[in-house]
Protein backbone atom coordinates (compact mmCIF):
# COMPACT_ATOMS: atom_id res chain seq x y z
CA UNK A 1 0.00 0.00 0.00
CA UNK A 2 1.54 3.27 -1.16
CA UNK A 3 0.54 6.96 -1.29
CA UNK A 4 -1.27 7.59 -4.56
CA UNK A 5 -2.71 10.42 -6.59
CA UNK A 6 -5.63 9.31 -8.75
CA UNK A 7 -6.89 11.49 -11.56
CA UNK A 8 -9.89 11.10 -13.86
CA UNK A 9 -9.61 13.14 -17.05
CA UNK A 10 -13.09 13.93 -18.29
CA UNK A 11 -14.46 14.26 -21.79
CA UNK A 12 -17.18 16.75 -20.95
CA UNK A 13 -19.46 17.96 -18.18
CA UNK A 14 -20.43 16.12 -15.03
CA UNK A 15 -23.43 16.30 -12.66
CA UNK A 16 -22.66 16.08 -8.96
CA UNK A 17 -25.52 16.23 -6.50
CA UNK A 18 -23.52 17.41 -3.50
CA UNK A 19 -20.33 18.61 -5.20
CA UNK A 20 -18.09 15.70 -4.26
CA UNK A 21 -17.14 12.22 -5.45
CA UNK A 22 -16.01 9.41 -3.13
CA UNK A 23 -13.21 7.19 -4.41
CA UNK A 24 -14.05 4.33 -2.04
CA UNK A 25 -17.66 4.41 -3.26
CA UNK A 26 -16.48 4.23 -6.87
CA UNK A 27 -14.21 1.28 -6.14
CA UNK A 28 -16.96 -0.54 -4.25
CA UNK A 29 -19.30 0.02 -7.21
CA UNK A 30 -16.64 -1.38 -9.54
CA UNK A 31 -16.25 -4.49 -7.37
CA UNK A 32 -20.05 -4.94 -7.38
CA UNK A 33 -20.09 -4.68 -11.17
CA UNK A 34 -17.16 -7.05 -11.59
CA UNK A 35 -18.64 -9.63 -9.21
CA UNK A 36 -22.18 -9.12 -10.62
CA UNK A 37 -23.69 -8.41 -7.22
CA UNK A 38 -27.44 -7.71 -7.22
CA UNK A 39 -28.55 -4.07 -6.88
CA UNK A 40 -29.01 -2.69 -3.37
CA UNK A 41 -32.40 -3.56 -1.91
CA UNK A 42 -32.57 -6.98 -3.56
CA UNK A 43 -31.40 -9.15 -0.68
CA UNK A 44 -28.79 -8.36 1.96
CA UNK A 45 -25.99 -5.85 1.36
CA UNK A 46 -22.75 -7.66 0.60
CA UNK A 47 -19.47 -6.81 2.34
CA UNK A 48 -17.18 -5.36 -0.31
CA UNK A 49 -13.40 -5.28 -0.02
CA UNK A 50 -11.49 -2.58 -1.92
CA UNK A 51 -7.70 -2.24 -2.35
CA UNK A 52 -7.42 0.86 -0.14
CA UNK A 53 -5.98 0.87 3.38
CA UNK A 54 -8.50 1.14 6.21
CA UNK A 55 -7.93 3.51 9.14
CA UNK A 56 -6.69 1.73 12.31
CA UNK A 57 -10.18 1.25 13.76
CA UNK A 58 -11.51 -0.01 10.41
CA UNK A 59 -14.35 2.52 10.17
CA UNK A 60 -13.46 3.87 6.72
CA UNK A 61 -10.80 3.78 4.02
CA UNK A 62 -7.87 6.16 3.74
CA UNK A 63 -8.83 8.04 0.60
CA UNK A 64 -10.01 11.57 -0.03
CA UNK A 65 -13.22 12.88 -1.59
CA UNK A 66 -12.81 14.75 -4.86
CA UNK A 67 -14.38 18.20 -4.66
CA UNK A 68 -13.64 19.64 -8.09
CA UNK A 69 -13.83 23.34 -8.86
CA UNK A 70 -15.98 24.13 -11.87
CA UNK A 71 -15.42 26.80 -14.46
CA UNK A 72 -18.64 26.51 -16.50
CA UNK A 73 -22.19 25.41 -15.77
CA UNK A 74 -25.17 24.58 -17.95
CA UNK A 75 -28.79 24.05 -16.99
CA UNK A 76 -30.47 21.14 -18.72
CA UNK A 77 -33.92 19.65 -18.31
CA UNK A 78 -35.07 16.08 -17.94
CA UNK A 79 -38.47 15.51 -19.51
CA UNK A 80 -40.59 12.55 -18.66
CA UNK A 81 -43.90 11.83 -20.33
CA UNK A 82 -46.35 9.01 -19.91
CA UNK A 83 -46.41 6.91 -23.14
CA UNK A 84 -49.71 8.35 -24.30
CA UNK A 85 -49.69 7.06 -27.88
CA UNK A 86 -48.92 3.52 -26.70
CA UNK A 87 -51.63 3.76 -24.04
CA UNK A 88 -54.18 4.67 -26.69
CA UNK A 89 -53.06 1.85 -28.97
CA UNK A 90 -52.28 -0.91 -26.46
CA UNK A 91 -53.98 -0.08 -23.18
CA UNK A 92 -56.45 -2.49 -21.60
CA UNK A 93 -60.14 -1.61 -21.90
CA UNK A 94 -60.47 -0.90 -18.17
CA UNK A 95 -57.65 1.64 -18.48
CA UNK A 96 -59.93 4.57 -19.40
CA UNK A 97 -58.46 7.79 -18.09
CA UNK A 98 -55.00 9.33 -18.33
CA UNK A 99 -54.41 12.41 -16.20
CA UNK A 100 -51.30 14.23 -17.42
CA UNK A 101 -51.33 16.96 -14.79
CA UNK A 102 -51.30 14.85 -11.63
CA UNK A 103 -50.80 11.37 -10.27
CA UNK A 104 -48.72 8.52 -11.65
CA UNK A 105 -49.26 9.49 -15.29
CA UNK A 106 -48.15 13.10 -14.79
CA UNK A 107 -45.59 14.56 -17.19
CA UNK A 108 -42.71 16.53 -15.71
CA UNK A 109 -39.74 18.65 -16.71
CA UNK A 110 -37.00 18.75 -14.13
CA UNK A 111 -34.00 21.09 -14.16
CA UNK A 112 -30.65 19.34 -13.85
CA UNK A 113 -27.30 21.12 -13.86
CA UNK A 114 -24.08 19.96 -15.48
CA UNK A 115 -20.68 21.56 -14.92
CA UNK A 116 -17.20 21.44 -16.42
CA UNK A 117 -14.39 20.72 -13.96
CA UNK A 118 -11.30 22.92 -14.12
CA UNK A 119 -8.83 21.42 -16.61
CA UNK A 120 -11.44 18.64 -17.06
CA UNK A 121 -9.82 16.80 -14.15
CA UNK A 122 -11.07 15.24 -10.94
CA UNK A 123 -8.45 14.29 -8.33
CA UNK A 124 -8.23 12.02 -5.27
CA UNK A 125 -5.47 10.96 -2.84
CA UNK A 126 -5.31 7.51 -1.29
CA UNK A 127 -3.19 4.89 0.43
CA UNK A 128 -3.65 1.77 -1.61
CA UNK A 129 -2.55 -0.81 -4.14
CA UNK A 130 -1.99 1.08 -7.40
CA UNK A 131 -2.37 -1.89 -9.76
CA UNK A 132 -5.54 -3.21 -8.15
CA UNK A 133 -7.08 0.27 -8.08
CA UNK A 134 -6.15 0.80 -11.74
CA UNK A 135 -7.81 -2.51 -12.68
CA UNK A 136 -11.03 -1.61 -10.90
CA UNK A 137 -11.14 1.92 -12.28
CA UNK A 138 -11.10 0.62 -15.87
CA UNK A 139 -14.70 -0.47 -15.14
CA UNK A 140 -15.66 3.08 -14.15
CA UNK A 141 -16.37 4.79 -17.48
CA UNK A 142 -18.66 7.60 -16.30
CA UNK A 143 -18.83 9.61 -13.08
CA UNK A 144 -21.56 11.39 -11.16
CA UNK A 145 -25.29 11.65 -11.64
CA UNK A 146 -27.19 10.64 -14.82
CA UNK A 147 -24.36 8.54 -16.19
CA UNK A 148 -26.89 6.58 -18.21
CA UNK A 149 -27.16 9.57 -20.53
CA UNK A 150 -23.41 9.94 -20.97
CA UNK A 151 -22.66 12.58 -18.37
CA UNK A 152 -19.26 12.51 -16.66
CA UNK A 153 -17.50 10.43 -19.32
CA UNK A 154 -13.93 9.55 -18.31
CA UNK A 155 -11.37 9.85 -21.09
CA UNK A 156 -8.59 8.26 -19.03
CA UNK A 157 -7.57 7.31 -15.52
CA UNK A 158 -4.15 8.02 -14.01
CA UNK A 159 -3.06 6.22 -10.82
CA UNK A 160 0.38 7.58 -9.89
CA UNK A 161 2.65 7.26 -6.87
CA UNK A 162 2.56 10.48 -4.88
CA UNK A 163 4.90 11.97 -2.32
CA UNK A 164 2.81 12.23 0.84
CA UNK A 165 2.52 15.69 2.41
CA UNK A 166 3.17 14.07 5.80
CA UNK A 167 0.78 14.07 8.74
CA UNK A 168 -2.81 13.52 7.77
CA UNK A 169 -2.22 12.08 4.28
CA UNK A 170 -4.51 11.41 2.50
CA UNK A 171 -7.50 12.57 4.53
CA UNK A 172 -6.33 15.81 6.23
CA UNK A 173 -4.36 18.63 4.63
CA UNK A 174 -3.45 21.89 6.38
CA UNK A 175 -5.89 21.01 9.15
CA UNK A 176 -8.80 20.64 6.71
CA UNK A 177 -10.64 17.33 6.16
CA UNK A 178 -10.49 15.95 2.61
CA UNK A 179 -13.33 13.54 3.32
CA UNK A 180 -16.00 12.94 5.96
CA UNK A 181 -14.08 12.12 9.16
CA UNK A 182 -15.04 11.50 12.78
CA UNK A 183 -15.18 14.93 14.44
CA UNK A 184 -12.36 14.01 16.83
CA UNK A 185 -9.97 12.85 14.09
CA UNK A 186 -6.42 14.03 14.90
CA UNK A 187 -4.96 16.97 12.99
CA UNK A 188 -8.23 18.78 12.25
CA UNK A 189 -8.36 22.51 12.97
CA UNK A 190 -11.89 23.84 13.53
CA UNK A 191 -13.47 21.87 10.68
CA UNK A 192 -17.07 22.33 9.48
CA UNK A 193 -19.35 19.71 11.06
CA UNK A 194 -22.33 18.03 9.45
CA UNK A 195 -24.21 14.75 9.52
CA UNK A 196 -22.66 12.45 6.92
CA UNK A 197 -22.12 8.79 6.14
CA UNK A 198 -18.55 7.85 6.85
CA UNK A 199 -18.12 4.96 4.45
CA UNK A 200 -19.89 3.32 1.53
CA UNK A 201 -22.75 2.88 0.78
CA UNK A 202 -22.99 6.66 1.11
CA UNK A 203 -26.67 6.76 0.17
CA UNK A 204 -27.58 4.93 3.37
CA UNK A 205 -28.66 7.92 5.44
CA UNK A 206 -29.56 5.79 8.44
CA UNK A 207 -25.80 5.44 9.01
CA UNK A 208 -25.17 9.18 9.18
CA UNK A 209 -23.21 10.55 12.12
CA UNK A 210 -21.75 13.92 13.09
CA UNK A 211 -18.59 14.30 11.01
CA UNK A 212 -15.95 16.80 10.05
CA UNK A 213 -16.62 17.42 6.37
CA UNK A 214 -14.74 19.16 3.56
CA UNK A 215 -15.67 22.87 3.50
Amino acid sequence: MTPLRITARLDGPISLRDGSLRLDGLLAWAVAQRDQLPPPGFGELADIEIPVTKEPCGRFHLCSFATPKFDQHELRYVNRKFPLAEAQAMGATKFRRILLSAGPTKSYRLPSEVAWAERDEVEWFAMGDADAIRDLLTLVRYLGHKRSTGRGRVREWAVDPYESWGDGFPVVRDGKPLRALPADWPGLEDPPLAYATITFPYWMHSREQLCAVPG
Partner: protein
Amino acid sequence: MHEIKRFEFLLEAATPIAHHSEVHGNSAVAFRRKIRMPDGAWAQVACVTSDTMRHACREAIAYAFLDAAGLLADPSLSEAALRLLFAGGMITGRGDASTIKLDTYREMCDLVPSLSLLGGCAGNRVIPGRLVVEDALLVCAESKHLLPKWIVDHVGQFDTSRAHMELEQRVRMDPTLDPGKRKLLSAGAASDAENRLLQSEAAHDTDIATAREATKSTMLPRTFERVASGSLFSWGVEATLYNDLDVDVFSTTVAAMLANARVGGKRGTGHGLLRAIMAKGVAVSAPADRLHPMDTTDLAAKTGTMFRSHVQARAARIKEFLATVNA
Protein backbone atom coordinates in the same frame (compact mmCIF):
# COMPACT_ATOMS: atom_id res chain seq x y z
CA MET B 1 -18.38 -13.15 -18.54
CA HIS B 2 -17.99 -9.46 -17.85
CA GLU B 3 -17.57 -7.15 -20.80
CA ILE B 4 -18.14 -3.48 -21.47
CA LYS B 5 -19.13 -3.20 -25.10
CA ARG B 6 -19.30 0.06 -26.97
CA PHE B 7 -20.82 0.83 -30.37
CA GLU B 8 -19.94 4.03 -32.15
CA PHE B 9 -22.07 5.21 -35.05
CA LEU B 10 -21.84 7.82 -37.74
CA LEU B 11 -25.46 8.80 -38.32
CA GLU B 12 -26.84 10.81 -41.19
CA ALA B 13 -29.94 12.99 -41.06
CA ALA B 14 -31.93 11.44 -43.91
CA THR B 15 -34.53 14.18 -43.40
CA PRO B 16 -34.16 17.47 -41.48
CA ILE B 17 -34.06 17.12 -37.70
CA ALA B 18 -36.51 19.34 -35.80
CA HIS B 19 -35.45 18.53 -32.22
CA HIS B 20 -36.31 21.51 -30.02
CA SER B 21 -35.29 22.49 -26.52
CA GLU B 22 -37.85 25.25 -26.00
CA VAL B 23 -40.15 27.72 -27.68
CA HIS B 24 -39.89 31.50 -27.41
CA GLY B 25 -43.19 32.99 -28.54
CA ASN B 26 -43.73 31.37 -31.93
CA SER B 27 -40.07 30.36 -32.43
CA ALA B 28 -38.82 26.89 -31.59
CA VAL B 29 -35.13 26.64 -30.74
CA ALA B 30 -33.07 23.56 -31.63
CA PHE B 31 -31.31 21.57 -28.93
CA ARG B 32 -27.67 22.55 -28.52
CA ARG B 33 -24.88 21.43 -26.23
CA LYS B 34 -22.19 23.62 -24.78
CA ILE B 35 -18.73 22.42 -25.77
CA ARG B 36 -15.31 23.39 -24.45
CA MET B 37 -13.00 24.02 -27.39
CA PRO B 38 -9.32 23.01 -27.30
CA ASP B 39 -8.30 26.67 -26.86
CA GLY B 40 -10.60 27.05 -23.84
CA ALA B 41 -13.33 28.95 -25.73
CA TRP B 42 -16.95 27.76 -25.61
CA ALA B 43 -19.25 26.81 -28.45
CA GLN B 44 -22.86 25.68 -28.83
CA VAL B 45 -23.32 22.65 -31.06
CA ALA B 46 -26.60 21.10 -32.22
CA CYS B 47 -27.31 17.61 -30.97
CA VAL B 48 -29.95 14.96 -30.48
CA THR B 49 -30.04 14.56 -26.71
CA SER B 50 -29.03 11.34 -25.03
CA ASP B 51 -32.43 11.25 -23.29
CA THR B 52 -34.10 11.16 -26.71
CA MET B 53 -31.77 8.48 -28.05
CA ARG B 54 -32.15 6.43 -24.87
CA HIS B 55 -35.92 6.65 -25.00
CA ALA B 56 -35.84 5.59 -28.65
CA CYS B 57 -33.81 2.53 -27.60
CA ARG B 58 -36.26 1.71 -24.81
CA GLU B 59 -39.23 2.09 -27.13
CA ALA B 60 -37.64 -0.04 -29.86
CA ILE B 61 -36.79 -2.94 -27.55
CA ALA B 62 -40.25 -2.70 -25.91
CA TYR B 63 -41.92 -3.24 -29.28
CA ALA B 64 -39.48 -6.06 -30.10
CA PHE B 65 -40.27 -7.63 -26.71
CA LEU B 66 -44.05 -7.40 -27.13
CA ASP B 67 -43.77 -8.76 -30.64
CA ALA B 68 -41.65 -11.73 -29.53
CA ALA B 69 -44.05 -12.47 -26.67
CA GLY B 70 -46.99 -12.42 -29.09
CA LEU B 71 -48.61 -9.51 -27.27
CA LEU B 72 -48.72 -7.05 -30.15
CA ALA B 73 -51.59 -8.83 -31.91
CA ASP B 74 -54.00 -8.33 -29.03
CA PRO B 75 -52.40 -5.84 -26.67
CA SER B 76 -54.26 -5.06 -23.46
CA LEU B 77 -51.58 -3.70 -21.20
CA SER B 78 -52.20 -2.22 -17.78
CA GLU B 79 -51.05 1.28 -16.95
CA ALA B 80 -48.18 -0.12 -14.89
CA ALA B 81 -47.05 -2.46 -17.67
CA LEU B 82 -47.09 0.38 -20.21
CA ARG B 83 -45.10 2.58 -17.88
CA LEU B 84 -42.60 -0.18 -17.15
CA LEU B 85 -41.95 -1.06 -20.79
CA PHE B 86 -42.05 2.40 -22.38
CA ALA B 87 -40.95 4.72 -19.57
CA GLY B 88 -38.99 2.52 -17.18
CA GLY B 89 -41.70 2.32 -14.51
CA MET B 90 -41.92 4.38 -11.35
CA ILE B 91 -41.80 4.03 -7.60
CA THR B 92 -45.49 3.71 -6.84
CA GLY B 93 -45.36 3.59 -3.07
CA ARG B 94 -47.28 0.32 -3.11
CA GLY B 95 -45.76 -2.86 -1.78
CA ASP B 96 -42.72 -3.39 0.41
CA ALA B 97 -39.75 -1.33 -0.70
CA SER B 98 -37.40 -2.36 2.10
CA THR B 99 -36.17 -5.68 0.75
CA ILE B 100 -37.16 -7.61 -2.33
CA LYS B 101 -36.17 -11.20 -2.65
CA LEU B 102 -33.27 -11.90 -4.94
CA ASP B 103 -35.35 -14.60 -6.65
CA THR B 104 -38.01 -12.01 -7.54
CA TYR B 105 -35.34 -9.76 -9.04
CA ARG B 106 -33.85 -12.60 -11.06
CA GLU B 107 -37.26 -13.63 -12.32
CA MET B 108 -38.02 -10.06 -13.38
CA CYS B 109 -34.75 -9.80 -15.30
CA ASP B 110 -35.39 -13.23 -16.83
CA LEU B 111 -38.88 -12.32 -18.01
CA VAL B 112 -38.01 -8.84 -19.24
CA PRO B 113 -34.34 -9.07 -20.22
CA SER B 114 -34.27 -5.46 -21.42
CA LEU B 115 -35.15 -4.31 -17.89
CA SER B 116 -31.80 -5.43 -16.50
CA LEU B 117 -29.99 -3.58 -19.30
CA LEU B 118 -31.99 -0.35 -19.44
CA GLY B 119 -32.98 -0.27 -15.78
CA GLY B 120 -36.30 0.77 -14.35
CA CYS B 121 -38.57 0.53 -11.35
CA ALA B 122 -40.61 -2.56 -10.60
CA GLY B 123 -41.86 -4.16 -7.42
CA ASN B 124 -41.42 -0.73 -5.84
CA ARG B 125 -37.64 -0.89 -6.21
CA VAL B 126 -35.20 0.82 -8.56
CA ILE B 127 -33.26 -1.51 -10.84
CA PRO B 128 -30.09 0.26 -11.98
CA GLY B 129 -29.44 0.02 -15.71
CA ARG B 130 -26.22 -1.02 -17.43
CA LEU B 131 -26.74 0.90 -20.66
CA VAL B 132 -25.14 4.29 -21.29
CA VAL B 133 -26.46 6.30 -24.22
CA GLU B 134 -24.65 9.46 -25.26
CA ASP B 135 -25.79 12.57 -27.11
CA ALA B 136 -25.76 12.27 -30.89
CA LEU B 137 -23.45 15.21 -31.50
CA LEU B 138 -23.43 17.15 -34.77
CA VAL B 139 -20.25 16.50 -36.73
CA CYS B 140 -18.87 19.99 -37.28
CA ALA B 141 -15.76 22.12 -36.84
CA GLU B 142 -16.57 22.92 -33.19
CA SER B 143 -17.07 19.27 -32.18
CA LYS B 144 -14.17 17.85 -34.21
CA HIS B 145 -11.85 17.38 -31.21
CA LEU B 146 -14.48 15.30 -29.37
CA LEU B 147 -15.21 12.89 -32.23
CA PRO B 148 -13.72 9.41 -32.58
CA LYS B 149 -10.69 9.43 -34.84
CA TRP B 150 -12.29 7.12 -37.41
CA ILE B 151 -15.15 9.59 -37.86
CA VAL B 152 -12.73 12.51 -38.27
CA ASP B 153 -10.78 10.49 -40.87
CA HIS B 154 -13.94 9.50 -42.73
CA VAL B 155 -15.60 12.91 -42.84
CA GLY B 156 -12.55 14.90 -43.92
CA GLN B 157 -14.18 18.30 -44.34
CA PHE B 158 -15.88 20.14 -41.47
CA ASP B 159 -18.17 23.16 -41.52
CA THR B 160 -19.41 25.20 -38.56
CA SER B 161 -22.43 24.18 -36.50
CA ARG B 162 -24.25 27.32 -37.68
CA ALA B 163 -23.88 26.21 -41.32
CA HIS B 164 -25.92 23.07 -40.58
CA MET B 165 -28.88 24.99 -39.16
CA GLU B 166 -31.90 26.21 -41.07
CA LEU B 167 -34.66 28.55 -39.93
CA GLU B 168 -38.00 27.46 -41.36
CA GLN B 169 -41.36 29.17 -41.26
CA ARG B 170 -44.72 27.44 -41.46
CA VAL B 171 -48.26 28.82 -41.38
CA ARG B 172 -51.38 27.02 -40.28
CA MET B 173 -54.01 28.24 -42.75
CA ASP B 174 -57.35 29.61 -41.60
CA PRO B 175 -59.95 27.72 -43.71
CA THR B 176 -62.52 30.48 -43.21
CA LEU B 177 -60.40 32.78 -45.41
CA ASP B 178 -61.04 30.53 -48.43
CA PRO B 179 -64.41 31.40 -50.08
CA GLY B 180 -64.68 27.86 -51.44
CA LYS B 181 -64.38 26.35 -47.98
CA ARG B 182 -66.77 28.92 -46.48
CA LYS B 183 -69.45 27.43 -48.75
CA LEU B 184 -69.17 24.23 -46.67
CA LEU B 185 -70.26 26.07 -43.53
CA SER B 186 -73.79 26.00 -42.13
CA ALA B 187 -75.78 29.18 -42.74
CA GLY B 188 -75.19 30.53 -39.24
CA ALA B 189 -71.48 29.70 -39.21
CA ALA B 190 -71.01 31.22 -42.69
CA SER B 191 -72.68 34.41 -41.53
CA ASP B 192 -70.41 34.55 -38.41
CA ALA B 193 -67.32 34.06 -40.57
CA GLU B 194 -68.41 36.80 -43.03
CA ASN B 195 -69.08 39.19 -40.14
CA ARG B 196 -65.68 38.47 -38.59
CA LEU B 197 -63.96 39.17 -41.91
CA LEU B 198 -65.85 42.45 -42.28
CA GLN B 199 -64.98 43.45 -38.70
CA SER B 200 -61.37 42.51 -39.35
CA GLU B 201 -61.26 44.72 -42.45
CA ALA B 202 -62.82 47.60 -40.53
CA ALA B 203 -60.35 47.17 -37.67
CA HIS B 204 -57.51 47.17 -40.17
CA ASP B 205 -58.78 50.42 -41.72
CA THR B 206 -59.21 52.17 -38.35
CA ASP B 207 -55.88 50.71 -37.11
CA ILE B 208 -57.12 50.15 -33.55
CA ALA B 209 -54.85 47.51 -32.03
CA THR B 210 -57.41 45.97 -29.65
CA ALA B 211 -59.98 45.62 -32.44
CA ARG B 212 -57.39 44.07 -34.76
CA GLU B 213 -56.42 41.60 -32.04
CA ALA B 214 -60.05 40.67 -31.37
CA THR B 215 -60.89 40.02 -35.00
CA LYS B 216 -57.66 38.52 -36.34
CA SER B 217 -57.77 35.23 -38.22
CA THR B 218 -56.59 31.97 -36.70
CA MET B 219 -53.64 31.70 -39.07
CA LEU B 220 -50.58 30.80 -37.02
CA PRO B 221 -47.21 31.68 -38.53
CA ARG B 222 -44.33 30.21 -36.55
CA THR B 223 -40.63 29.59 -37.10
CA PHE B 224 -38.46 26.69 -36.05
CA GLU B 225 -34.81 25.76 -36.30
CA ARG B 226 -33.84 22.47 -37.82
CA VAL B 227 -30.64 20.64 -38.69
CA ALA B 228 -30.34 20.29 -42.45
CA SER B 229 -30.75 16.89 -44.03
CA GLY B 230 -27.45 15.22 -44.89
CA SER B 231 -25.85 16.49 -41.68
CA LEU B 232 -23.83 13.91 -39.79
CA PHE B 233 -23.99 12.97 -36.12
CA SER B 234 -21.56 11.02 -33.96
CA TRP B 235 -23.29 8.73 -31.46
CA GLY B 236 -21.96 6.31 -28.86
CA VAL B 237 -23.77 3.68 -26.81
CA GLU B 238 -22.25 1.21 -24.39
CA ALA B 239 -23.33 -1.48 -21.99
CA THR B 240 -21.95 -3.74 -19.31
CA LEU B 241 -22.75 -7.29 -20.35
CA TYR B 242 -22.75 -10.42 -18.20
CA ASN B 243 -23.90 -13.19 -20.54
CA ASP B 244 -24.71 -14.04 -24.15
CA LEU B 245 -28.35 -13.02 -23.71
CA ASP B 246 -27.21 -9.57 -22.54
CA VAL B 247 -25.06 -9.28 -25.67
CA ASP B 248 -28.01 -10.17 -27.90
CA VAL B 249 -30.43 -7.87 -26.06
CA PHE B 250 -27.93 -5.00 -26.40
CA SER B 251 -27.42 -5.60 -30.12
CA THR B 252 -31.16 -6.06 -30.68
CA THR B 253 -31.94 -2.83 -28.83
CA VAL B 254 -29.51 -0.80 -30.93
CA ALA B 255 -30.45 -2.52 -34.18
CA ALA B 256 -34.20 -2.18 -33.58
CA MET B 257 -33.78 1.48 -32.74
CA LEU B 258 -31.66 2.24 -35.80
CA ALA B 259 -33.99 0.30 -38.10
CA ASN B 260 -36.44 3.20 -37.84
CA ALA B 261 -34.75 5.96 -35.90
CA ARG B 262 -37.06 8.96 -35.78
CA VAL B 263 -36.17 11.73 -33.37
CA GLY B 264 -37.55 15.12 -32.45
CA GLY B 265 -40.75 16.78 -33.56
CA LYS B 266 -42.63 17.35 -36.80
CA ARG B 267 -42.47 13.67 -37.67
CA GLY B 268 -45.83 14.05 -39.38
CA THR B 269 -44.08 16.09 -42.04
CA GLY B 270 -41.21 13.66 -42.43
CA HIS B 271 -38.70 15.24 -40.07
CA GLY B 272 -36.30 13.39 -37.83
CA LEU B 273 -35.19 10.30 -39.74
CA LEU B 274 -31.68 9.19 -38.82
CA ARG B 275 -29.76 6.56 -40.76
CA ALA B 276 -26.62 4.76 -39.62
CA ILE B 277 -23.99 4.92 -42.32
CA MET B 278 -20.93 3.59 -40.50
CA ALA B 279 -20.28 1.88 -37.20
CA LYS B 280 -17.51 0.51 -35.05
CA GLY B 281 -17.74 -1.95 -32.20
CA VAL B 282 -15.33 -1.78 -29.30
CA ALA B 283 -14.89 -4.25 -26.48
CA VAL B 284 -13.59 -1.91 -23.80
CA SER B 285 -12.83 -4.22 -20.91
CA ALA B 286 -11.58 -7.16 -22.95
CA PRO B 287 -7.84 -7.93 -22.71
CA ALA B 288 -7.10 -5.53 -25.56
CA ASP B 289 -9.18 -2.79 -27.08
CA ARG B 290 -10.70 -4.21 -30.23
CA LEU B 291 -12.03 -1.80 -32.77
CA HIS B 292 -13.78 -3.50 -35.63
CA PRO B 293 -16.02 -2.18 -38.38
CA MET B 294 -19.66 -3.25 -38.45
CA ASP B 295 -22.04 -3.53 -41.34
CA THR B 296 -24.97 -1.43 -40.19
CA THR B 297 -27.32 -2.86 -42.82
CA ASP B 298 -26.73 -6.37 -41.46
CA LEU B 299 -27.02 -5.43 -37.80
CA ALA B 300 -30.76 -6.02 -37.57
CA ALA B 301 -30.79 -9.23 -39.58
CA LYS B 302 -28.08 -11.01 -37.60
CA THR B 303 -29.17 -10.18 -34.08
CA GLY B 304 -32.16 -10.86 -31.92
CA THR B 305 -32.42 -14.62 -32.44
CA MET B 306 -31.54 -15.49 -28.87
CA PHE B 307 -33.63 -12.61 -27.47
CA ARG B 308 -36.64 -13.67 -29.51
CA SER B 309 -36.50 -17.35 -28.56
CA HIS B 310 -35.88 -16.44 -24.90
CA VAL B 311 -39.00 -14.24 -24.79
CA GLN B 312 -41.13 -16.67 -26.85
CA ALA B 313 -40.33 -19.49 -24.43
CA ARG B 314 -41.62 -17.40 -21.52
CA ALA B 315 -44.60 -15.77 -23.27
CA ALA B 316 -47.25 -17.12 -20.90
CA ARG B 317 -45.34 -16.11 -17.77
CA ILE B 318 -44.62 -12.68 -19.29
CA LYS B 319 -48.32 -12.09 -19.90
CA GLU B 320 -49.04 -12.98 -16.29
CA PHE B 321 -46.19 -10.79 -15.03
CA LEU B 322 -47.32 -7.76 -17.04
CA ALA B 323 -50.89 -8.17 -15.81
CA THR B 324 -49.84 -7.99 -12.17
CA VAL B 325 -46.70 -5.85 -12.18
CA ASN B 326 -46.53 -2.88 -9.82
CA ALA B 327 -44.46 -0.23 -11.63
